[in-house]
């Protein structure tokens, strides 16, 4: 049993506030990803959970126990560093044994557990190797195994996959998910890769500039972004965000895209959300894969745009559209039949449009 509860967590480095009033509850056995661009405070948060950094303010509770006075070596937290921090002067076996030895575990028990871990991580034939001879992929396994062998209830991973080659990364992604299932641990996973976060985590905490932007399931974060930052950060290619003016009133809302034209809003859900708009200046968002391309004469709400560029990227085709000052990317199946220069209608997807306040960036009318 190990839940983590952070309340008002703040960390200042001199003038800089790395983490600002963070409130986050991580349930027992939950897999949470801290997601954000570099410098957003996610690693600092992780270090505070581990006890390497002390918070400037706020508290961290493990299962309701305040961790303020518990030093890092007593927190029983597994930690995998981005660069692995393998003990290079020891063999693989000594690395795996380390956590157990300093805990004074019996010799035979150490041997048994190290053997099990080596089996699990497929490091058997490397046990007596010097770590200098290992590949990056193997170092990664040693780093995870070394922490996992002590069976911590909380496992923290700081961008553990960022140094790996693409194939092994995909492999380790599934492996990590299996491991978590096996160990029944609470896992906190720091990453800047939204695909990793989406595929691994039960819940994602999106951070930027030391502030928690949104905390929810991958589905929530992706489909109901709370603000422009989250909307833009999640998804690749990222969401089309078009600044525009909200026109009309109740029952007959419209959008004015300036020199790109105008469009009515026929979507009932979107119209309901428009009512909450504080100002006419808004940002209209659509995910590239949600946009429907139709002939320009169709009356569906949308913008008539010109095809400027077509990118065939393997499984998909990314179509670039432009009208006036606005550009829109549309993601379609591979070998989508379309010609550069054609004028088409980028039809707004029903129930899948997003509107944000232009000034604050906050999603309008999201419940």
């Amino acid at each position, binding site marked *: 049993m190990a839940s983590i509860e952070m309340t008002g967590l703040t960390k200042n480095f001199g003038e800089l506030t790395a983490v600002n009033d963070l409130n986050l509850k991580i349930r027992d056995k939950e897999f949470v990803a801290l997601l954000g661009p570099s410098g957003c405070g996610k690693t600092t948060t992780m270090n505070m959970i581990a006890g390497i950094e002390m918070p400037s303010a706020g508290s961290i509770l493990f299962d309701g126990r305040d961790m303020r006075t518990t030093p890092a070596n007593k927190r029983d937290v597994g930690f995998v560093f981005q660069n692995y921090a393998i003990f*290079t002067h020891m063999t693989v076996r000594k690395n795996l044994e*380390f*956590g157990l030895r300093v805990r004074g575990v019996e010799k035979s028990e150490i041997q048994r557990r190290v053997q099990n871990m080596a089996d699990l991580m497929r490091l058997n034939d490397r046990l007596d190797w010097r770590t200098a001879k290992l590949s990056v992929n193997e170092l990664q396994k040693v780093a995870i195994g070394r922490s996992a062998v002590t069976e911590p209830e909380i496992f923290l991973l700081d961008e553990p996959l960022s140094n790996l080659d693409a194939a092994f990364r995909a492999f380790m992604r599934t492996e990590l998910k299996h491991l978590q299932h096996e160990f029944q641990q609470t896992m906190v996973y720091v990453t800047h890769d939204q695909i990793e976060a989406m595929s691994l985590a039960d819940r994602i905490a999106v951070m930027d500039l030391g502030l928690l932007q949104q905390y929810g399931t991958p589905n929530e974060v992706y489909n109901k972004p709370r603000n422009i930052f989250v909307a833009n950060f999640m998804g690749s290619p990222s969401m089309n965000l078009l600044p525009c003016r909200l026109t009309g009133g109740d029952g007959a809302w419209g959008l004015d895209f300036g020199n790109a034209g105008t469009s009515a809003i026929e979507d009932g859900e979107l119209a309901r959300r428009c009512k909450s708009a504080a100002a006419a200046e808004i940002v209209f968002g659509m995910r590239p894969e949600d946009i429907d391309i139709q002939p320009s004469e169709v009356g569906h709400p949308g913008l008539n745009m010109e095809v400027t560029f077509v990118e065939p990227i393997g499984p998909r085709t990314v179509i670039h559209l432009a009208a006036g000052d606005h550009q829109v990317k549309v993601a379609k199946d591979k070998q989508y039949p379309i010609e550069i220069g054609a004028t088409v209608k980028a039809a707004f997807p029903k129930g899948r449009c997003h509107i944000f306040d232009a000034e604050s960036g906050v999603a309008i009318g999201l419940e």
Partner: protein
Amino acid sequence: MTDSVVNASPGLSPRPAKSGRKKKPVLTPLEREGKKLGLYMTLPAQLLLLFIVAFPLCMQVYVSLTWWTPLDGTKWYDAYESLNWFGNYGDIFDDSKFWGSLARTFLIVVVVVPAEFMLGLGLAMLFADKFPGKRVFYSIMLMPMMIVPAVAGYMFFMLFQSSGPINDILSAITGTRIDMVWLADRDLAMVSVMIADIWQWTPLMFLILLAGMVGVPEDQMKAATLLGANAWHRFWRIVLPRMKTVMIIALVIRTVECFKIFDILYVMTGGGPGVATKSISVYILDLTFKDLEWSYVAAIGLFILFFLSLIALVGIYYMQAAQKKAEA
């Protein structure tokens, strides 16, 4: 180009065995010319080095095999006239004054070097962490090392006078008047000299060890902490194994240096009272300028050189072993 490609793929052409004899690389005429030119260019420097290092050593060996002394006007190159082969070396074994000085020097080394090592290590551990005023303390810490040993000796000479500050301080601490005759007592004089040497040379030990300690990657220390290691575990399992080489270097440097202890000691006690603090260097000084036994001094010098080389060799052996282990 094609050759190397063929050679690189096993099966197409037999590859030379790995352990096979190394073939002498075939040089092009230009390369051969270049090698020759290189030799000519470095020749002056090589000759100079030969003169600086090899000549005095050879001369010392030569003189040590004779009874030569310049007092009777014999030139050094005519020393063979009084050739006695290993007579001087034989004398060393019968020279109780020599063995006494050597024993005292030994005593100083085995007390002073470990003490400096432990103190230096402790200080290095302190200075590996951050604390307020660290830079100032750091500068202060290094100061003793920069003082001319003779001056440091004079400082301690004054401090250890029976009417000097050390006795006053001890009196103040204990509450009763203490009047120890530090430099006139056989044992206390030795202790005083040792304290002075420790004071002066702990900073060097500290500096070398600190450099080694800072070289321990911080992330590994963090990783160890998070795996449950306390400060003792971290020191014992991470810091120490990584500092082995540096520790050996520090110990060898200080052992060899300490063996040659002279200035600080000579200023403080002059080797006295009696011969109580007479180190090998002081003994050699006496031989050279009081007894004028120059060929004998040469023999003793070689004897000690051999001895110190042994210590250095042992150190180098352990250092290489440690390094090999780290790299393997």
